[in-house]
């Protein structure tokens, strides 16, 4: 069940109305039932066992860790829980990376019945809820949070439907206390959330899906294109991916907000980052911070010799790439970002003359603009690996995307960007909105306008969305991860 469908709207309406109608003590049960329904409808019903086993093991190990005084006593339970959760993730997602076709394997073992099998895909949201589960376990192990004693709340934490498909990757310390909270219907909160949802929907169905038409056409057959189409498709993909994922995050946060919950932010205008480090502080924040807290820091972080910090960074980016998908394109994408990051670290350390806390100094506006463009170009080049169907396709894109001459560029202007014009306008619109957003949250500023100005803006926005939406009902890109 996709968030951009009427089916989801009907589902959420039922959940929200019932949620505010029933006593507080039953709400967790409603949300849990809704989350499991969402999981079953959205994926393969039998995978509900996977999330149930994962939750049960997490609950049991969490409780047992809570009984132990020392870390050494908790250690075995942490190891068991991590092994089970990562085992599921590895089994469903990464076996094919090693050339093992899981479906035929299961069919061979007579686990799959019938010739069409299960149409095996990874269980819905497994990459996301596994990280969420691991963060809970590690936090309990470290003693940062107490284990959740109510199985229902823990199950809800693992499967909470707004975050299930593609995050944000929540933390136990952030979400679990909220799940115990009592929230009344709040007009301002709910109307703000509806606007946030609408904006997310706009980003997805008007911008991302529109750009996706061009991107899919070019990247679907990269060998048929040379020069500008590849360059433009890469630019459009950068914006498509942002709008798709940020749109999803807005929608998911809005759903939770209506019910009273505040989910983690995932984006902070990432394409206005002045360097790669800043980009990663602004892009998919919940994943980046998870990797920092549960991988980079345990690996030693930037403590110890400089080379060790570099290795740690590289490991984190490789894992990040691998997390996105069981494909060498993602691994290379992660490695490339790791190299960007290392180059940036080395540069700033060289410039600052010290290792600790080396940060780039802010320059003037012109210099900052240059840095933003340069960072965007680096990130955009890396997106080629992210989007291409195979490593060889990606290298073909790299080989051919710059093979155009001045005549191609001048033709572009004489034909007024025929074929690209519409998409470039869409991209321009997003960057203008981003620039306006730099001065403060647009939705809040809009909300301060009087109703006779505000509503016409809403109607223009609504009709633009209704008329110009690409009605393919396409799924969110990050759902595949």
């Amino acid at each position, binding site marked *: 069940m996709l968030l951009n469908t009427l089916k989801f709207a009907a589902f959420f309406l039922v959940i929200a109305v019932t949620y505010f109608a029933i006593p507080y003590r039953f709400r967790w049960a409603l949300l849990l039932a809704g989350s499991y329904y969402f999981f079953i409808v959205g994926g393969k019903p039998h995978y509900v066992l996977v999330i149930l086993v994962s939750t049960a093991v997490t609950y049991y190990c969490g409780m047992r860790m809570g009984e132990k005084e020392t870390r050494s006593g908790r250690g075995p339970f942490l190891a068991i829980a991590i092994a089970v959760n990562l085992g599921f993730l590895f089994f469903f997602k990464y076996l094919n990376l090693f050339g093992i076709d899981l479906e035929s394997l299961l069919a061979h073992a007579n686990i799959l019945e019938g010739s069409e099998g299960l149409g095996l895909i990874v269980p819905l949201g497994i990459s996301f809820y596994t990280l969420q589960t691991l963060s809970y376990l590690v936090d309990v192990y470290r003693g940062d949070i107490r284990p959740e004693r109510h199985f229902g709340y823990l199950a809800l934490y693992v499967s909470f439907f707004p975050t299930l498909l593609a995050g944000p990757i929540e933390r136990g310390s952030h979400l679990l206390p909220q799940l115990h909270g009592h929230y009344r219907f709040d007009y301002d909160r709910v109307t703000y959330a509806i606007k946030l949802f609408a904006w997310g929907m706009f980003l997805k169905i008007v911008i991302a899906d529109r750009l996706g038409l061009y991107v899919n056409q070019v990247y679907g057959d990269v060998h048929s294109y040379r020069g500008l189409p590849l360059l433009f498709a890469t630019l459009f993909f950068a914006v498509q991916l942002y709008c798709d994922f940020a749109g999803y995050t807005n929608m998911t946060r809005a759903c939770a907000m209506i019910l009273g919950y505040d989910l983690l932010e995932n984006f902070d205008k990432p394409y206005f980052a002045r360097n790669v480090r800043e980009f990663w502080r602004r892009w998919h924040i919940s994943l980046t911070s998870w990797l920092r807290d549960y991988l980079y820091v345990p690996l030693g972080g930037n403590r110890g010799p400089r080379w060790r910090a570099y290795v740690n960074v590289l490991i984190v980016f490789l894992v990040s790439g691998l997390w996105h998908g069981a494909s060498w394109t993602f691994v290379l994408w992660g490695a490339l970002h790791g190299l960007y990051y290392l180059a940036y670290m080395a540069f700033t350390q060289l410039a600052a003359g010290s290792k600790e806390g080396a940060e780039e100094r802010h320059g003037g506006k012109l210099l900052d603009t240059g840095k933003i463009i340069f960072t965007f170009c680096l990130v955009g080049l890396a997106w080629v690996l992210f989007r291409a169907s195979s490593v060889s396709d990606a290298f073909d894109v790299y080989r051919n995307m710059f093979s155009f001459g001045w005549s191609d560029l001048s033709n572009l202007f004489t034909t007024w960007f025929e074929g690209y014009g519409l998409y470039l306008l869409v991209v321009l619109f997003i960057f203008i909105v981003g620039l306006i957003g730099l001065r403060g949250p647009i939705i809040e500023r809009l909300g301060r306008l009087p109703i006779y100005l505000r509503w016409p803006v809403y109607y223009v926005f609504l009709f633009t969305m209704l008329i*110009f939406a690409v009605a393919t009902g396409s799924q969110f890109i990050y759902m595949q991860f």
Partner: protein
Amino acid sequence: MKKFIFRGACFAAIALILLSVLNLLYVRTNGYKSLDGTYKFRTVPDGINVMNLGSSHGEFGLDYGGIDTVTGFNFGLRGQSHYFDLQVLKEYGSKLAEGCVVLIPVSCVSLLQGIDPDQRILYYRVLAHGSIPDHDAVEYIRFRLLPILTASFNARYLIKDREDVDPDLFACPGADEEFYIYNALYYYGLFEDLKKECAGSGYSVGILGEMIAFCRDNGFKPVLITTPFTNHYNYWYTADDYSEFYAAIACLTEEYGVPYLDYSHDPRFGERLDLFGDSDHLNPAGRKMFTQILLADLGITHDAARDETGACSTGKPAARNPGPETDYPSSYLSGAFRGAT
């Protein structure tokens, strides 16, 4: 909560009113009317005595201009499968005069053609939504009730009229022979793909049978026709391609006694590239000539058209053509055209 419900209801009501107004304005634009060929179904006349179904051959197949005794209508949309031929026939059956001749264009391609999802949704504008396979209330609202929701960039016609209204896709002025050669190859490629897709799924003969039975039950006169093709088009099709097709048609003609007129290899057209918009479709001049020949062959009009074109004297239809004069007496078709010259 009350404030939220009140304001929400007001917002939704205003939105609905504005949307309806916008929709009303949109459906009146010439851009919408010429969008996908579906608007013509709002102007279907009563008392039709020649109904032309079929895909692009149905859409652009016949030109009834200047033939006073015929109330004809082309019911085809581009890429129309026989499934939708049948649904259109049922939906608009009430518009047909008793004894109406129902022309059902068939070809090697049409018998393989399934339901194209992009085409399927257009029929919400043409048919009752129950006739659409896998029909969906949301699609019905979007495509039938509020087409402004599917306007996308065509919404610009709200501001400025469309300039190239109803372009004739197959006018193709000044095309040289090379165009027809490559075009024929292109079409054959599509046919090959279709064959691969449909391997084992069989021909849609059952649907044709249903159409013929429907016509018979309602007093209409079905006629299977294959429109003329260029020789370039026919060049690619092998004996095997045709044998399956003709076997399927033979089944129908035998079982239902329905006439079949085959102009696919008609020498009056095959060499005459000036009569074609592409290798498969007649251009306006070809359409005019073909209509006159077809109506004469059906006994609806007399043979003056043949005399005018001067083509008819050169021959009969191709060898495989059963020929209307020999197999089917003109009395078969006379009912709807009493008084025709």
